[in-house]
């Protein structure tokens, strides 16, 4: 597998401009001759579809939900970063670049991150012009708030629904192109396979989830914008339909998968409260500005929190990190919560939670002030848990939230399969080993609005593609393969459900395995144990999962089963990746690589690289390749929050 990052040469600030100039173009009149497939309609997919269609390409866009407006980007709460420096507090493109690459613990490509910071300003202009109702100051200018990992105020927001508003902006641009006939929209289609002709991506095979029909579509370029794989853990803050299938199918056809073990675990989520739970809900990180995190000093303390006196409480973040206290970065906060619970000091029914207490803040600032800041979050918390944070401390626990890993892409966002691009959370490109708050929205829209079109044009102009009609052998083979896999999934159904397992039961087992061994802290022995147990889960899945109904119909159990089958396969490279990276960096904490104070210790000498996995075959182990990261413009430094 050849990993050529195609990073343009020259000074950092000129790379993107030079690259845009050196990339080839497609004449406007010729664009309509090219077909582009976009899979996914989140921020990246919707913005890419709209932009390419505006430029004149014939676009076909696919989404798994009943409408492109429902992609999970919609759930992002906090905001979107941009280097506008409207606050005059010393922000600049270079500072946004530096904060992002440092936040990622120096495991991302300098040139990509710089470009991201560069186009961030255009994104805000674009969204404002679309009618996104960003928060405004009384004078009518755009308002900003500050976010973790930055000392400037650069986050633009629309209440706690920024993701929704940005997505609806992209969705409206997409809708306009659908109306104009430039985008053909396919709802309720799940991508099952990618079709290669002469080694180039030329189409996809999808399942119409309403009818069970397997269809294939052809194009000159395929763009995946299919999001992250956090649902491998079963419980995560991701939407129920978020999955790895599209990326995994591409991987099996030759696309390298980069840093699969880089999974961000968000410290402030509402804890799990029972086996029946289907997903976790995030509470905004901003709560840690005023809430104090604590657990009882003694394990198994059954007193109500208000009955536990100060001397019996352990404010462990404040004690361990006096200078940052409760505001340590996400990964540190998450790891410490887990440590406390592992020591038996966790609270709540399950013992898997810590308190986030607002009593002192309320005493200091008054209830009104606190409610003004967090009222809507308190309300949301109360709706879910039936407990009022004003009276009782909140219970929080970390949860899987975002995946920095993804399909490996070069500077042009093209995977190792020619003609196959990956954008948004689906690729690995910009966040290194940890993503800062309010950067995911920025990356999705940067890729879709301002980067991908240049890449597509260059690819089309520099390759002469043979004509395909969608009826060639690779398409037929792909359909057959997909049908075969569906038949295989349904093989256990004939005998009835007796003695069988449901899809969710196996998925929960997989999730538990990954959470325990490849979650917030990773250890060689434990990872090896997980690797040993994985084949057992796979066997259990194929031998005993019972799926009711047929493949030729709307069958939600079958849809889930297909995704879980891929998660089970995917888990292997996740664990292997965590095992191979014997350093701690960002979200990835190897117990063996810690400082004396139990902080993550990077090993820049041996691990300043992206690990890229290549699929060999279903029976052989995957092979790891390295893309060395060069830091020409910044000097990696060790993080410290003491």
């Amino acid at each position: 597998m050849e990993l050529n990052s195609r990073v343009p040469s020259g000074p950092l600030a000129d790379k993107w401009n030079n690259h845009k100039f050196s990339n080839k173009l497609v004449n406007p009149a010729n664009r309509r001759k090219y077909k582009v497939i976009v899979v996914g309609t989140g921020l990246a997919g919707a913005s890419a579809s709209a932009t390419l269609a505006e430029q004149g390409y014939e676009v076909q866009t696919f989404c798994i939900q009943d409408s492109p407006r429902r992609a999970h980007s919609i759930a992002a709460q906090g905001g979107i970063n941009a280097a506008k420096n409207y606050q005059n507090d010393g922000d600049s493109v270079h500072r946004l670049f530096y904060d992002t690459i440092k936040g990622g613990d120096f495991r991302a490509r300098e040139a990509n991150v710089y470009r991201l910071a560069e186009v961030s300003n255009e994104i805000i202009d674009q969204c404002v012009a679309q009618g996104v109702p960003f928060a405004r100051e009384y004078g009518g200018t755009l308002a900003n708030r500050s976010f973790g990992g930055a000392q400037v105020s650069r986050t633009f927001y629309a209440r706690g629904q920024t993701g929704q508003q940005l997505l609806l902006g992209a969705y409206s641009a997409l809708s306009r192109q659908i109306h104009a006939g430039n985008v053909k929209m396919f709802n309720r289609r799940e991508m099952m396979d990618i079709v290669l002709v002469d080694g180039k991506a030329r189409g996809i095979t999808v399942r119409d989830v309403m009818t069970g029909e397997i269809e294939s579509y052809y194009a000159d370029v395929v763009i995946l914008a299919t999001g992250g794989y956090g649902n491998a853990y079963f419980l995560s803050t991701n939407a129920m339909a978020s999955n790895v299938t599209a990326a995994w199918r591409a991987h099996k056809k030759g696309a390298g998968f980069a840093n699969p073990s880089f999974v961000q675990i968000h410290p402030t989520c509402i804890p799990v409260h029972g086996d029946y739970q289907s997903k976790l809900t995030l509470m905004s990180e901003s709560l840690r500005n005023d809430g104090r995190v604590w657990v009882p000093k003694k394990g198994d303390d059954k007193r109500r929190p208000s009955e536990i006196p100060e001397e019996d409480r352990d404010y462990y973040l404040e004690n361990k990190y006096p200078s940052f206290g409760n505001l340590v970065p996400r990964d540190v906060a998450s790891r410490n919560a887990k440590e406390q619970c592992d020591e038996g000091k966790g609270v709540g029914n399950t013992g898997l939670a810590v308190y986030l207490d607002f009593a002192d803040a309320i005493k200091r600032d008054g209830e009104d002030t606190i409610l003004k800041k967090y009222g809507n979050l308190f309300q949301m918390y109360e709706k879910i848990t039936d407990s009022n944070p004003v009276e009782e401390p909140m219970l929080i626990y970390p949860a899987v939230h975002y995946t920095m890993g993804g399909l490996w892409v070069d500077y042009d966002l093209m995977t190792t399969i020619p003609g196959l691009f990956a954008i948004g959370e689906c690729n690995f490109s910009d966040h290194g080993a940890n993503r800062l708050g309010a950067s995911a929205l920025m990356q999705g829209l940067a890729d879709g609005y301002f980067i991908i079109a240049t890449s597509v044009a260059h690819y089309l102009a520099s390759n002469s593609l043979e004509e395909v009609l969608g009826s060639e052998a690779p398409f037929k083979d792909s359909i057959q393969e997909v049908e075969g896999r569906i038949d295989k999934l349904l093989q256990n159904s004939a005998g009835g459900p007796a003695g069988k397992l449901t899809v969710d039961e196996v998925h929960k087992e997989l999730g538990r395995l990954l959470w325990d061994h490849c979650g917030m802290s990773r250890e060689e022995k434990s990872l090896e144990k997980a690797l040993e147990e994985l084949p057992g889960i796979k066997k259990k899945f194929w031998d005993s999962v019972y799926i009711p109904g047929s493949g030729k119909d709307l069958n939600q159990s079958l849809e889930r089963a297909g995704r879980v089958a891929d998660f089970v396969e995917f888990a292997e490279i996740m664990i292997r990746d965590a095992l191979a990276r014997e350093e701690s960096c960002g979200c990835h904490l190897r117990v063996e690589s810690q400082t004396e104070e139990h902080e993550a210790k990077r090993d820049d000498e041996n691990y300043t690289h992206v690990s890229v996995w290549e699929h060999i075959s279903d029976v052989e182990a995957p092979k790891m390749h390295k893309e060395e990261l060069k830091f020409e413009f910044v000097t990696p430094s060790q993080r410290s929050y003491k």
Partner: protein
Amino acid sequence: MSSINLTLKIWRQHNSDALGNLETYDLDDVHTDMSFLEMLDILNEKLTKEGKEPVAFDHDCREGICGMCGAVIDGIAHGPEKEVTLCQLHMRNFSNGDTIVIEPFRSRAFPVKKDLLVDRSALDRIIQSGGYVSINTGGTPDGNSLPIPSSNAELAMDAAACIGCGACVASCPNGAAMLFTSAKISQLALLPQGHAEKKQRALSMVAQMDEEGFGNCTNAKECEAVCPKGISIRNIARLNREYLFAALTEG
């Protein structure tokens, strides 16, 4: 944590052409901390284990923002709690021994596809007919070039909060989509960016809305009462005004 026993009457319909009916299921030991959809998950696991076909229902984010879920619970879209979607409705709103009737969102424009799952693509087509500002990517002026009064931005945001779930249509005695359509028209009418096309937008979106077979608004206010995002019928008033003005002056 306590648990309750329930009798569920759920609309089962194999496909759009089939005749549907209410089926009765007993479900015991439902934890009151569960969300409504988690309760349906449990039912589906139970049905699967019994070799029966699970109930099809739409859902995705399960945090009340994607707008994918929704059903009519005892005659109320998204159930008895105010300003929540079905996924955020918790079982503590019900009592032991309750019988709960669960039906799909119904409207002439929302054909039932299977069980509780309906086709709401008509709402997408309303947006496609004009729910946008016609600008291409790139070449846009600086975000601060047009000051927008904070109060207008807030009102626009109130309207823009619509998640497109279709509860307004499902609850309207006439199956009208006025609240949905007015939310988008209001958002864009309140912002200077949307001004250039506001007349054409009002005309085409209303025309599309009528073409899809949605009913007439009779100001019954049910839509506002069930809207999980609390969108006000003040937006409908604004739509009426926009439409009247557009119809009389466009061209």
